[in-house]
């Protein structure tokens, strides 16, 4: 079966839209993806027919809503190869998932001065700042892998050592597109007794990801980047670890029993899902996972590899364009950041937008990555299963226009 991008596009209502009189060319999926009609409909149907609160009611609507919510958990668990749906904690986004681990695991490990946490210089702010704050609270030290000129993690043999307690690394960079081969890092971390979180916000939407194969202890990802709605993210964690960790947010639904004098907590995942969860959002995410599964993540990834190869070639041919990150499709995904000689990314993005081409400009919530390459900002085009080579051509034409305006 070849990947039928035209048929895929027909499922995305927004792709029929025009922007500034041009057909929408949406090249900002690493920021947030568009949503297929199947996802939008699943949420609407839930709200129109089955809405009730979960885990609290014996009535029919409550039971239907609970089943829908737990079915979504099961789908997400299967999608990433979790051993049991109980390893899937629904959060509000990746950022909350990472904060949850920083807080609860940090407390569980009783971090103290002398302990070390290892991240990298290509992390999203959401995988930097929670660790900085954890280090501030506990006196632990933050260390990090550097990044090579090619946009890969710089090997550093001594970085992970017997002082290391937590390693948190991005699986696929949201700026450079690099897909990190994390197996060595995971093995080394486990060798020294450290635990590993992988920020899979950019990988789970685009590649087949299997938590058993990754061998990490936690992964975080986010619904809105994988055809799902805003308002929902996912933490996967090994059940035995989740079961040992203290709660993070506290309140309804995460308790076993409460008296004014004290509280005991429910088992995971409930322990980490305080308050009314994003119910309709879980239903939407479940529908997104169904959609991706039906196409097959291998096929989705292959399509993006093809587009990326085409885009790398096309952009390399545009004079004055410099690409940050791996120059060939090997070990990288469909997220391409670049500079246009003498033109600020804001201006690049603005001219492209006038032509209907939507790219992200700025620091991409990864200021250290930009700093590593000596620029305050970059322009980024990022692709997904609905991206076509025609859209890459539109981007290239747009860049010619940019150079005309600022020539």
């Amino acid at each position, binding site marked *: 079966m070849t990947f039928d991008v035209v048929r895929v596009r027909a499922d995305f209502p927004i792709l029929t839209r025009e922007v500034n009189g041009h057909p929408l060319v949406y090249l900002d999926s690493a920021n947030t993806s568009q949503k297929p009609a199947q996802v939008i409909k699943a949420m609407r149907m839930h709200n129109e027919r089955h809405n009730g609160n979960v885990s609290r009611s*014996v009535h029919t609507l409550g*039971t239907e809503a609970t089943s829908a919510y737990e079915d979504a958990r099961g789908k997400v668990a299967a999608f990433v190869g979790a051993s049991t749906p109980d390893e899937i904690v629904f959060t509000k986004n990746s950022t909350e998932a990472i904060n949850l681990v920083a807080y609860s695991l940090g407390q569980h490990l009783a971090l103290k001065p002398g302990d070390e946490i290892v991240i990298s210089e290509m992390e999203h702010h959401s995988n930097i700042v929670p660790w900085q704050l954890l280090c501030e609270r506990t006196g632990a030290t933050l260390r990090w892998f550097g990044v090579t000129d090619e946009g890969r993690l710089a090997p550093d043999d001594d970085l992970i050592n017997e002082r290391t307690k937590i390693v948190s690394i991005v699986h696929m960079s949201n700026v450079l597109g690099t897909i990190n081969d994390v197996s060595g890092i995971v093995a080394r971390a486990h060798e020294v007794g450290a635990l590993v979180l992988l920020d899979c916000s950019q990988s789970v939407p685009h590649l087949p990801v299997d938590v058993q194969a990754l061998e990490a202890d936690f992964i975080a990802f986010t619904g809105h980047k994988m055809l799902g709605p805003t308002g929902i993210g996912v933490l996967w964690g090994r059940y035995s670890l989740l079961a040992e960790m203290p709660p993070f947010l506290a309140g309804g639904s995460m*308790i076993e029993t409460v008296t004014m004098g004290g509280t005991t907590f429910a088992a995971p995942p409930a322990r980490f899902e305080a308050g009314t969860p994003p119910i309709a959002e879980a239903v939407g995410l479940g529908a997104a996972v169904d959609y991706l599964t039906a196409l097959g993540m291998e096929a989705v990834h292959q399509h993006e590899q093809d587009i990326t190869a085409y885009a790398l070639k096309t952009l390399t041919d545009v004079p004055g364009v410099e690409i940050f990150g791996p120059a060939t499709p090997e070990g990288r995904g469909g997220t391409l950041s670049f500079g246009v000689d003498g033109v600020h990314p804001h201006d690049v993005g603005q001219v492209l937008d006038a032509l209907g081409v939507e790219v992200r400009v700025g620091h991409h919530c990864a200021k250290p990555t930009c700093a590593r390459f000596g620029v305050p900002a970059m322009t980024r085009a990022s692709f997904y299963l609905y991206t076509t080579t025609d859209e890459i051509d539109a981007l290239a034409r747009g860049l010619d226009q940019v150079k005309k305006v600022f020539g």
Partner: protein
Amino acid sequence: MMLDGLYQEIILDHYKHPHGRGLRDPFNGEAHHVNPTCGDEITVRVSSAAGEFSDISYDGLGCSISQASASVLYELLRGRSPEDAAGIHEAFVALMQGRGQVEPDEDVLGDGIAFAGVAKFPARVKCALLPWMAFKDAAARAGIDVSSEASEVKA
């Protein structure tokens, strides 16, 4: 869901006239379980002698399903060997978690077959299992293992 499948006459009977209710001494193991979603509670005690559960006593607050389930448990497991109890326990848990697809065996489950309809009410499965999970824990504390793979799954 209609009620007929849920409130079998047998269940209402056990609810209104529970068998073996009340906590008794002596005992070898005790466990207190709570259903966190509804607040129901049960305490189960087991005493073992001569290789069997010589008594099982219980007390608790709960709905008709959980109370009747405790009464049936008492009837089914008292006087049994750990092996027999494990088999019955497993059969009951399997029935409850079968979403109404499991055909109960009256020879094994006795009055317990009346709970077949409960399996179709996901919100009530936990009620039916509450005493059984507490029993398993109480037995474990008495040093008797009634686990089986089927009863490992979360209540």
